[in-house]
């Protein structure tokens, strides 16, 4: 690895790089996978999205694509009961967790030990903390005043997962409101709702498990 490559990888910015390495001669290229449209760049993008390093052959040349992604992040909007086990489980799975809720009585340190709390409205939060391609967003507040602005911010971001708590009926009404705000059907299809894998979850912890499982499935498959 060249020193310049190491310096770029470790300069502190939370961004994705892919190092393409040709082991036959030790040469390497540092690729920005979300702006490079070359065949190698597109392969790097797929590798970065799936967070999977591996070998690929392009134009008769073997490259090892080494993915360097920033940490995963989970933004929970709505500091409700389900958010408590979900925050704890997601931390175990390696996520940096943020909980956003303008209602100060909900987003308390006692309810969310070790989690970064943001007592903000979601639009204000996302204006200063934009979601990236390593961000999962789950809205749980069950209040359109809080949930809808968060979903709008999510839909205009590259977040890899957007989930929204609510029944089929609630979700249909939500999609209708967002369509009225100008979002196309294919954009709205990014929202996973009712949220979580269908594992028959009942308790808050079980629902949290189904959501984390769906996040993992979206990220890894």
């Amino acid at each position: 690895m060249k020193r310049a490559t190491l310096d770029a990888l470790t300069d502190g910015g939370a961004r994705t790089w892919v190092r393409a390495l040709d082991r036959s001669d030790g040469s390497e290229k540092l690729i920005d996978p979300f702006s490079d449209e070359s065949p190698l760049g597109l392969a790097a993008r797929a590798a970065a999205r799936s967070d999977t390093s591996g070998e690929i052959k392009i134009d008769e040349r073997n490259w090892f694509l080494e993915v360097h992604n920033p940490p995963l992040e989970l933004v929970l909007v709505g500091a409700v009961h389900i958010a408590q086990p979900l925050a704890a489980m997601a931390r175990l799975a390696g996520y940096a967790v943020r909980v956003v809720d303008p209602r100060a009585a909900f987003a308390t340190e006692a309810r969310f030990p070790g989690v970064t709390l943001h007592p903000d409205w979601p639009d204000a939060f996302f204006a200063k903390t934009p979601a990236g391609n390593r961000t999962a967003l789950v809205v749980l507040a069950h209040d359109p005043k809080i949930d809808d602005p968060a979903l709008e911010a999510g839909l205009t971001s590259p977040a890899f997962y957007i989930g929204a708590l609510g029944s089929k009926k609630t979700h249909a009404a939500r999609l209708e409101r967002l369509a009225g705000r100008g979002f196309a059907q294919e954009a709205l299809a990014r929202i996973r709702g009712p949220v979580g894998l269908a594992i028959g979850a009942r308790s808050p912890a079980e629902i949290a498990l189904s959501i984390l499982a769906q996040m993992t499935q979206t990220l890894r498959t």
Partner: protein
Amino acid sequence: MLVLLTAAADTSRVSEELQTAAAWLVAGHKVALGTVIQTWGSAPRPAGSQIAVRDDGAFLGSVSGGCVESAVIEAALQTIADGESRNLEFGVTDARAWDVGLACGGRIRIFVEAIGE
């Protein structure tokens, strides 16, 4: 095994190994890097997992569940000395792998390189 749990949690992080390698270089050390290129069977660390090795043998990170690290560190120290990259392969059919104990039944290919100009 706690080692494996810790390693799994690290895979979602920006590489602590590279951060540490950079710090070692700044402190005047020479550093080599081992990277898992490919795995077959039940290898515990996925491709892209890295180990940073310092010229005095100190290391951070892992390329297996702790089974072949000592051999990789040895190769890394040779790379630091001669500047040559190395391709290593470990598996149950490899007598050397038995020596260093890759008992999980998997096979792994590891690339060892210096961090240089």
